[in-house]
């Protein structure tokens, strides 16, 4: 039997009572949705709520998504919106992103698996201390631990990290221009 692989096909199958199609959507987009919620600064418990909320919103719109092929972007944007709603309860004034089905959210798009892999590969092309620093922060080392490994003052880790991320952004941009 033909296995639907395209996201649009999976969404249509899920809307047509196919639990396996739903599970495949979850496998495909769940990690990115989690990363989106965590990127908004949510704790694990709140991020779990944001991700669950986005899946429940999809249930509500299962038959009305205008562009099924854009379901990945829709889920990421919806996760971000739910995350912002949770944050707004704690910090009033946090702006909410508009949800436009099929219109990629630039922030969430960074979390596409391909882009993440390119970012990760690009880290290898950075000079020290950026290469080590970004590898350490990607593995959730705190500032004190990073400072210890790099032999620099704790207070310098934040500003150095910002500079390294800017260099990474420039490197990615240069690679895109060459391609």
């Amino acid at each position, binding site marked *: 039997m033909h296995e639907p692989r395209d996201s649009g096909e999976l969404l249509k199958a*899920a809307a047509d009572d196919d*639990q396996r199609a*739903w*599970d495949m959507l*979850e496998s495909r987009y*769940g*990690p*990115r*949705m*989690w*990363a*989106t919620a*965590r*990127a*908004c*600064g949510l704790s*694990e418990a709140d*991020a*779990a*709520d944001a*991700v*669950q*909320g986005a*899946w*429940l*919103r999809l*249930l*509500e719109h*299962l038959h009305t998504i205008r562009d099924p092929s854009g379901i990945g972007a829709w889920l990421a944007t919806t996760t971000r919106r*739910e995350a912002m*709603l*949770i944050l707004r309860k704690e910090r009033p004034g946090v702006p909410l992103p508009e949800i436009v089905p099929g219109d990629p959210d*630039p*922030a*969430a798009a*960074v*979390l596409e*698996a391909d*882009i*993440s*892999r390119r*970012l*990760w590969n690009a*880290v290898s092309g950075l000079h020290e201390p950026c290469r080590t620093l*970004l*590898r350490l*922060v*990607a*593995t*959730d080392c705190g500032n004190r631990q990073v400072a210890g490994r790099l032999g620099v003052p704790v207070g310098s880790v934040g500003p150095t*990290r*910002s500079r390294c*991320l800017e260099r*990474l*952004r420039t490197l990615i941009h240069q690679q895109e221009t060459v391609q």
Partner: protein
Amino acid sequence: MINEEYFLAALRLAAGHDPLPEHVSAAARDAYGLRVPQAVTAVPAECPASREVRSADGCKMVRFVAAGLTFDLEVTVGDGLIDVAGQIVPHPGEGSHVDVRTPHLTLTRRLARTGHFAATGLPPGWLSVVCHRPGQPPVQTRWVRIRP
């Protein structure tokens, strides 16, 4: 502008750190069982008395409307559990009932003549109410997050 947190999240994603927890993945898959075929979705509306506000006693008022029905829900969070006191107006008809749902627990209640219903002891998190009407499509409120 993409902020640093998104770049760091992308790096963590690629590095395999901060992976999606298994229980979050399982909850997402289980959510599929919560769909209500043919349901009309009731959307949030402004309450005249209080616009989705939480009062000092932890009570939150929310209103949803669709298909000519208005759902008024008074949600109280206490002792780590949720109590819901609701009313549907106008009464959706003889034989109607409601399901007060969370992802982990559904409580079914008959409606009083006034359209009132109540459910207690629900786990905090996502909540929705579905009104089943004989001979008509069910009406389901949007999911709303209720936390202390």
